[in-house]
C-alpha cells in the first residue's frame, strides 16, 4: 500500500510540474507580446525585474531582505527537514503574493523555472545501478539492474521539497528587490569598488543590449530570417555579432557621457537605503525561531 502511494506521488508530482511549466511557458510567450502598461518598450522585457519593481515589499530594506533570505536558505539546507521546507514554501508564497501583491500565476511561473533541473537531478538520486537484484523496484537491463527503494524515493521527495523551499526563499528576495538595490547591498559588503561599478553598468547595459537584440530580431523576422533552424542559426549568428560590434563601438560614447559629467573613475550615486522597522526585524526573528522549533520537534 505504502509503496503504491509513493509511486503514484512520484509520478504525479513531475506530471503536475510539467503541466504547470508548459502552461506557464505559453503564458510567458503571450506576456512578452503585451507587456504591462508602464512605459516599457517591446523587447526590453525581463519579467522578474518588473515584478520586483512593482512589488509592495519594495519598500522594505534591501540588506534586511538579502540577509533574511540567506538565513532562511541556510536553515533550509542545513536542517534538511521536510516540515521546515513545507513551512518555508507556504510562508514565502504568502509574503510575495499576499503581502507583496504579485499574482499567483506569476509567482508559480517563476517558481517553475528550475523545475526541469530539479526533476532531472532528482531522478539521478532516486535510481541506482547494481549487479544484484536489490531494492524495492528494479528492472533488468541486460548486464545489471536499475533499482530504486522506498527510502530512496523518500530521500528524493525530501530533496525536491528542500530545493523548492530554498528556491522560494530566493524568490522572496528577487521578486521584491530591484537589482539596483541588491547591487547597493553588495557594494556595502566591501567588495572592491570597481566590481560594484561593473555590476551597476552591466545591469544598465543589459537592457540596452536586449533592446538592440530585439529590434534586430524583429527586422530579421520581417525578412523571414527565422523560417527554419538553418536560417535561424545564420540570422542569430549575424545578429549577435552585429550587436556586439555596435555596442562595443558605443562603449566609448558611454564613457564620454560619463566623463562630461565629471566622472573620475569612481561611480558615485546618491542612493538611500530604505528604513527598516523594528517590527519587521522582530517578526523575522520569530519566524526563524519558529522554523527551529519545528525542526526540534520533528527531527
Amino acid at each position, binding site marked *: 500500500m505504502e509503496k503504491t502511494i509513493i509511486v503514484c506521488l512520484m509520478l504525479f508530482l513531475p506530471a503536475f510540474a510539467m503541466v504547470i511549466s508548459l502552461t506557464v511557458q505559453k503564458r510567458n510567450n503571450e506576456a512578452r507580446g503585451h507587456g504591462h502598461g508602464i512605459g516599457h518598450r517591446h523587447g526590453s522585457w525581463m519579467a522578474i525585474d518588473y515584478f520586483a519593481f512593482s512589488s509592495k515589499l519594495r519598500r522594505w530594506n534591501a540588506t534586511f531582505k538579502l540577509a533574511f533570505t540567506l538565513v532562511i536558505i541556510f536553515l533550509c539546507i542545513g536542517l534538511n527537514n521536510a516540515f521546515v521546507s513545507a513551512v518555508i514554501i507556504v510562508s514565502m508564497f504568502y509574503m510575495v503574493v499576499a503581502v507583496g501583491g504579485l499574482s499567483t500565476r506569476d509567482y508559480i511561473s517563476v517558481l517553475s523555472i528550475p523545475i526541469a533541473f530539479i526533476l532531472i537531478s532528482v531522478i539521478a538520486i532516486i535510481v541506482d545501478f547494481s549487479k544484484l537484484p536489490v531494492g524495492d523496484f528494479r528492472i533488468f537491463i541486460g548486464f545489471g539492474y536499475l533499482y530504486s527503494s522506498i527510502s530512496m524515493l523518500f530521500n528524493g521527495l525530501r530533496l525536491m521539497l528542500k530545493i523548492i523551499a530554498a528556491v522560494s526563499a530566493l524568490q522572496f528576495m528577487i521578486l521584491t528587490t530591484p537589482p539596483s538595490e541588491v*547591487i547597493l547591498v553588495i557594494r556595502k559588503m566591501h567588495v572592491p569598488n570597481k566590481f560594484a561599478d561593473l555590476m551597476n553598468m552591466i545591469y*544598465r547595459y543589459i537592457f540596452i543590449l536586449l533592446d538592440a537584440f530585439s529590434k534586430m530580431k524583429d527586422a530579421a523576422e520581417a525578412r523571414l530570417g527565422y523560417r527554419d533552424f538553418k536560417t535561424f542559426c545564420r540570422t542569430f549568428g549575424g545578429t549577435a555579432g552585429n550587436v556586439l560590434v555596435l555596442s562595443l563601438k*558605443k562603449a566609448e560614447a558611454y564613457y564620454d557621457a560619463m566623463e562630461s559629467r*565629471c566622472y573620475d573613475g569612481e561611480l558615485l550615486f546618491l542612493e538611500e537605503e530604505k528604513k527598516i522597522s523594528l517590527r519587521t526585524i522582530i517578526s523575522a526573528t520569530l519566524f526563524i525561531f519558529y522554523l527551529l522549533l519545528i525542526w526540534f520537534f520533528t527531527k
Partner: protein
Amino acid sequence: MKNSILKVENLQYIYGNGKMALDDVSVEIYEGERIAVLGANGSGKSTFFLNLNGVYTPSHGRITYRGKTLEKKNLTELRKNIGIVFQDADNQIIASSVMAEVSFGPMNLRLTKEEVLKRVNEALIYMSLKGFEERPPHYLSGGEKKRVSIADIIAMKSEVMIFDEPTASLDPANALMLEEVMQKLGNENKTLIISTHDVDFTYRWAQRVIVFCNGKIIADGTPLDIFKNKEVLKQSNLKQPAMLQVYEMLVEKGLLKDTKEYPKSTEEFNELLDIMKNN
C-alpha cells in the same frame, strides 16, 4: 557689451584614424546667449561640443573659460560649468534609478549629501519628474528619458548648457515640451547652445546661429542674416524657415510692405495679418 564666457581660438581636432574633424574653429560665446548650431551630420558639431567640455583634447588651439585657459588641472572646473545633454539619452543614462542618475553629476562635484539631495529635487521638479525617483531607466518612455537626461545637467547647475540634437526621435508632444524648457532656461539667462536640423525652431528661438560644414564654421550671425544668405544655405544643405519664405513671398507679391519686422512664429505672423487687415 556682454561678458564673454567661452573663447575658442584656432581649435583643431583630429580623430584617431587621422581624419580631421575640426579645422581652425574660432568662436566667442557670451553670457546668456541662445545659440543654434546648424550643419549636416558629420560636420563636426558633436566633436566641437565634446571639445568645449574637455572630454576631447584638441590637437591644436586654445579654449578659454572666463579668462582661464583650459588645462588638464582645471578640467573639472570646465566640465562643471559646461554641461552636455547627449543626443541619445540611452548613451547618457548610467544609473539604474532616476534619483541615482540625476545625482551622478552633483555627486561627482563632491557636494555634501544635503546639497546633492536639494539639487536633485529641484531638477526633478523643474523637469516634472517628481514621483519617478525610483523608476529604473528601462521603464521610462523616450520622452521621459530625455527629461531625465536634461535634469542630469540642470542638477549640475552648469552655466552653459549644450543640447546635442535634442528633438531627434522625439514625438511632437515631447518636442513641444522641450521647446518650453528651452524658453524657460533662456529666460533664466542661462547660456544655451543647441545643435539641430530644425530651421523653423532655430528661426523662432535662437539669437545667434553658427553653421558648421566639414569641420569649419562657415557662418556666424543672427538667424535672419544666415537664412537670407543663399550661399551659406546651399553649401550646408539648409532650407529657409517657412515663416521667412512666406514673409518674403508676401513682400514680393506686393501684399505686404517690407517693414523689416520679420514674424518668427505663427503667433507673430497672426499679429502681422491683423495689422494688415486693420490698415
